[in-house]
């Protein structure tokens, strides 16, 4: 069994295996132009805006859950299927909200990237 010496790159590692060095450099050359940088900046802005909106929306819902329990007296102790509503809301109900936020984000982020590809003229 032959052993291979693994050397981790100290400098910034080059591209992920596929595509190779040449394609990465040509991609970056294209994006270095002034027009290319405008597109890149607008992509970063829209991705950041998207992330902040999803995070903000999620945190609002997260804060609303315990607030509902405090504001509506007796709601936390109301039994649904034998279990107190407060437990169901915080112990079970929050996870679908997390999943839905994540799914919306992944879909929209991919769409932003597709639009960038169109603008930047990449295939």
């Amino acid at each position, binding site marked *: 069994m032959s052993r291979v010496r*693994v050397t981790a790159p100290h400098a910034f590692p080059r591209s992920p295996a*596929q595509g190779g060095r040449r394609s990465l450099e*040509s991609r970056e050359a294209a994006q270095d132009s002034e027009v290319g940088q405008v597109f890149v900046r607008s992509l970063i802005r829209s*991705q950041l805006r998207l992330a902040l909106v999803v*995070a903000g929306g999620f945190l609002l819902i*997260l804060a609303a859950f315990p607030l509902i329990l405090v504001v509506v007296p007796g709601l936390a102790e109301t039994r649904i299927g034998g279990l107190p509503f407060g437990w169901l809301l*915080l112990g079970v109900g929050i996870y679908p909200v997390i999943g839905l936020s994540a799914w919306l984000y*992944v879909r929209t982020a991919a769409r932003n990237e597709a639009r960038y590809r169109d603008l930047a003229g990449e295939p």
Partner: protein
Amino acid sequence: MNAGVAMAAVAVVSLATAIIGFYGLRISRTTGDFYVASRTVRPWWNASAIGGEYLSAASFLGVAGLILLSGTDALWFPVGYTAGYLMLLLFVAAPLRRSGAYTIPDFTESRLSSRTVRRVTSLVVVVVGWLYIVPQLHGAALTIHIATGLPSWVGSVAVVVVVCLTVVAGGMRSITFVQAFQYWLKLTALAVPILFIIFVLAGHGAQPQSAPAVNPTDLAPAGLYQNVSLLVALLFGTLGLPHVLVRFYTNPDGHSARRTTLIVLGLLSVFYLFPTAYGLVARMYAPGLARSGQPDAMVLRLPGELVGGMPGDLLSALVVAGAFAAFLSTTSGLVVSLAGVISQDVLGGSVRGFRLAAVVSAVVPLGFAFMTGSLALAGSVGLVFAFTASTVCPVLLLGIWWRGLTDAGAIAGMLTGGVLCGGAMIAGSVTGSVQTPAWLAQPAAWSVPAAFAVMVIVSRATSHRVPATMPRIMTRLHTPERPLATERGPGGQ
């Protein structure tokens, strides 16, 4: 609890871990396998592995114990652990994958073009890793002592030995298989006993001894500040955990990194239903377990308490096996990522260096674990999250999203966060858990904003130090990878 059955369970899990590790050894022979499994791991495998690695002693034992103690207040722990992954997905997953860096120090060095930043980041990452391994070893000590009656140290030493053997033998590739296996083992080991218990309780028509809202001890409930501060720590701490981040490099591209995270969120959501169920059942049917002084042991004791006899022994053994899988998987994930950092920075990045570094990364926290007493597991892991959120998180978030970050700002911010949060942790452990004021016990709410603020202010003051490579690197972080086989000539627009 039947000691023989429990010991057999621990032995089987350790053996299975080792065997899968050695099986992985046969196929991990190409360059790069040792660090990041060649980035060819499928999303489902990878997601299971991330879940397996992330669900530590705190999730497996600690969360249920805290829920038993403080009821719905403690539900913020599982919610925060899961929502932390949402934040990771939103702000970090795809850009970090596209950076192409192997470790967090690789990322900061390349983003800020500075060797000094690299050294500071490495130091922080190693501290985080060691702090995080210690509670795993405490959990193992507790589990072994309760399950088999052997002295506590046997548990910690067993975990370190198995982890060293697996990591030294196979590197990341075999670890991926081990971790994926361990997620499903942990889920089964929690789900089967609690479902069986609920079935038995329902079958006997057992009457609850206590209402879910009644706290079994006179422990003071957590205030609003503590809950908010805890959530800040968990939400922003997850995206800086070294063993979690290294997993993202095993995705083929940025989009699949996002898809993997989406699957992970599903896996975590399913998993955390079960510690919640344990906590609720224990509050209603066995509140006496809270008064033993070891709430972390509740999950281990509940099957024996409520089922008893041979079925109780077997279910307990299953829980013990799952708990051991939790200690092994989190510790090995941390050891792999720490060994990656230490071997690159100190030992020159050879396979031999990686192995040596792996042993060092596992043995040092063993010393810490012997020197310190076990606190509540979920609480001590929560503090590690606070530390990560105050150090690694700001440098990652600002590095990915803000063009103005400089090396001086990054270093000043990380040191500020580390000193503030670390100081609070030390002060808290000196004064003891009862007397510590809330702001000191949960420092994240002020130490995280302080770290961000210092990082931004110092970067602004040293804006001439923004590296010339910045626009190119920002482009790489955020633009989608080109689809396969679409080579084009240079300069094409």
